[in-house]
């Protein structure tokens, strides 16, 4: 089993850290993982993306040309990567910031207004990215919630561990929304 | 009977390749005497440059490293950071230090590396056969300024000591000459001070020594001493340019 994910958005939306967290969660589960960032001359505000592979076997090529899942937090990222997604793959869209429809008909699409959800349910838009990550783990089961929380403990410095409960709630919010949406998709499909 | 004059221990018995009348030999000896007097011959590592003194490592009875052109201050930085308790000095000419190695000397001084630099300024490239140096005087003829150096387009001579003295990291900067016994004696004192500054851990120290090059200046040794006094001293005034008890790093 191997899951290849591209995560993309504006710099500052937490795309890189979300990818790292995912990779670390895979590592916590004893899987083979890799994380590659895009890197460019822009330091802040530009588009950022990273590629994460979580696999049961050795990751031969860490370069992802055709992701199984694409997670996009802004419109330019959707436009840039949509065509690359594997046929029948998954697409997670931050509909708070993306007001266009995807072109592809073969993808399993999940739209989440994560900015609003973060504001309404958690009163903090800074954990928007964690909501979409929660939706991703519910959809793919690539890693468990516990592994992500375990990874958080490792990547956050000790004095930031007070943020873990908030992040947990954000992840759970995403999981719940995804579950409802999946049921909805099934009943429609 | 007690000998009153002998070869310093810090010099080898090898006969130098320097031209007759060249003052490199005097300067070598002064450094060696200072090292002997300070009792640090076995604690000292020297860095020789590219230029006439490229073979200095054969003449000093010390551990030596030969550096690429202009890079002696960087090489000395590497040595000193590994052996902070040892004495490290560079011996550099004007082309080496003030042209191709300008960045290295400026930044070694800016970092206040605890090294000592002996900068030999004879206003010409010696080893390569008398080309214009960064310290060549205006109107001075050389192989690459055959009509005499002109400010346009060849630029003005660089006063290294004054320039480096403006840096906060420079602890001791002096310009001396070796054209007569009194000045030789003063030069030795300055060189000793520069080594003492290093040993006290105060900071970067440099002594610029005005030197002769009879061969490439096209004159006799005696004439060259006179030429130095008449032409170099007005442009390169002698004296201590900076003497700071402490540098704040």
């Amino acid at each position, binding site marked *: 089993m191997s899951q290849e994910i591209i995560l993309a958005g504006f710099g500052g939306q937490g795309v890189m850290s979300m990818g790292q967290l995912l990779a670390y969660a895979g590592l916590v589960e004893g899987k083979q993982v890799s*994380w590659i960032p895009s890197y460019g001359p822009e330091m802040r505000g530009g588009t950022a993306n990273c590629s994460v592979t979580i696999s049961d076997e050795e990751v031969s090529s860490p370069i992802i040309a055709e992701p199984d899942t694409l997670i996009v937090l802004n419109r330019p990222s959707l436009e840039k990567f949509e065509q690359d997604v594997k046929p029948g793959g998954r697409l997670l869209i931050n509909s708070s910031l993306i007001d266009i429809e995807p072109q592809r008909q073969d993808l399993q699409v999940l739209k989440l207004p994560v900015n609003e959800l973060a504001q309404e349910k958690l009163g903090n838009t800074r954990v928007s990215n964690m909501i979409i990550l929660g939706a991703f783990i519910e959809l793919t089961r690539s890693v468990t919630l516990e592994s992500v929380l375990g990874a958080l403990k490792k990547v956050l410095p000790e004095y930031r561990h007070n943020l873990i409960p908030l992040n947990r709630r954000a992840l759970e919010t995403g999981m719940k929304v995804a579950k409802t949406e999946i049921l909805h998709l099934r009943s429609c499909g | 009977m007690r000998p009153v004059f002998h070869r310093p221990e810090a010099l080898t018995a090898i006969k130098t390749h320097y031209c007759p009348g060249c003052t490199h030999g005097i300067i070598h000896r002064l450094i060696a005497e200072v090292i002997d007097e300070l009792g640090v011959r076995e604690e000292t590592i020297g860095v020789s440059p590219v230029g006439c003194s490229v073979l200095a490592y054969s003449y000093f009875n010390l551990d030596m*490293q*030969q*550096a690429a052109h202009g890079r002696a201050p960087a090489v000395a930085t*590497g040595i000193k950071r590994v052996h902070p308790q040892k004495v490290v000095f560079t011996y550099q000419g004007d082309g080496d230090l003030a042209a191709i190695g300008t960045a290295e000397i400026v*930044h070694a001084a800016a970092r206040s590396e605890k090294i000592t630099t002996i900068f030999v300024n004879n206003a010409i490239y010696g080893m390569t056969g008398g080309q214009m140096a960064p310290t060549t005087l205006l109107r001075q003829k050389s192989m690459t300024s055959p009509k005499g150096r002109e400010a346009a387009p060849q630029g003005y001579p660089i006063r290294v000591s004054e320039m480096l003295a403006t840096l906060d990291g420079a602890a001791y900067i002096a310009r001396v000459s070796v054209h007569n016994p009194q000045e030789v004696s003063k030069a030795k004192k300055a060189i000793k001070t520069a080594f003492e500054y290093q040993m006290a851990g105060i900071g970067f120290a440099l002594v610029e020594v005005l030197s002769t090059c009879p061969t490439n200046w096209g004159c006799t040794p005696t004439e060259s001493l006179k030429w130095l006094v008449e032409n170099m001293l007005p442009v390169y005034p002698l004296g201590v340019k900076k003497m700071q008890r402490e540098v704040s790093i």
Partner: protein
Amino acid sequence: MAKVLMKGNEALAEAAIRAGCRYFFGYPITPQNEIPEYLAKRLPEVGGVFVQAESEIAAINMVYGAAGAGARVMTSSSGPGISLKQEGITYIAGAELPCVIVNIQRGGPGLGGIQPAQSDYFQAVKGGGHGDYKLLVLAPATVQEMVDLMGKAFDLADEYRNPVMILGDGILGQMMEPVELTEQNHTQRTEKPWATTGAKGRSPNVITSLFLDPVELEKHNLHLQTKYDRMSQETLWENYKTKDAELVLVGYGTSARIAKAAVDQAREQGIKAGLFRPISLFPFPKNALQEACKQANHVLTVEMSMGQLVEDVRYNLEFKVPVHLYGRVGGMVPTTRSVLEEVKRWVNSGEGGGNL
């Protein structure tokens, strides 16, 4: 020890410290900045020295000084910076000083770009500066291998009194992978009686690459050549499904990983493909390459350059097998699919053949 997730650049820097390196001299350049940044923080913690030099040239000459003084020392950079360092590198090779130089390659020529490339291969394996000399060149393909080769690099440098280059690329430097940082005991096993430490109770040591007498300089060059010949025992490589391979892919570093994925996909389609991955680029694992290509009708190099490794592969296979090139440049990275297409193209071409 448990695995941790680390960036290649940072893992490599940590591995250097664990290999006993206490001195780093460098200058900022993308995509290797995490190395100096990490060491600026870590070296003082272990009693080491970090100096950000005024230039790449100064940095490599500081390495020269520190290496001559007997220390385990390193520097790192990327293409444009490595070009600037060539002066110092040839002096270090000429004076026979041990040190490690890391090149996290980016696209060239000139200022080029900052995305990954492998176009500094010739510069790394053929000398790079003036004069006849060679570096030992090691090319890791994973973050773990970056760590594992670091200790080896310092040991080889000391053993041969020669600069060793770790040749990575922007992807390896920037990517994160799980890595196990083994506790290494590399506290400088090699004695360095030649180092300049102050001539206490012995005759002076001189570090130089100057030999004005042609007889002496030729003798010195012959001595260096003997050393480079002796290095041939240090070859490192990886074979992947080459035993029955009719087409052998050859690549190093990141390209080799992409090629490996292509091998698996080709095998799924019934194509007998394999991968030969040189880990030491100098010395080049000639015998191993020949062995790996025994059954091959075609050899295809995959590289992020216009064709540099391909020349060494042709030469080392003694032109007995057709060797083709698939190269992407400028920061463009080959995809598994495009490599697979090249594989199919040559397999279906009906040409090829030859025997080793």
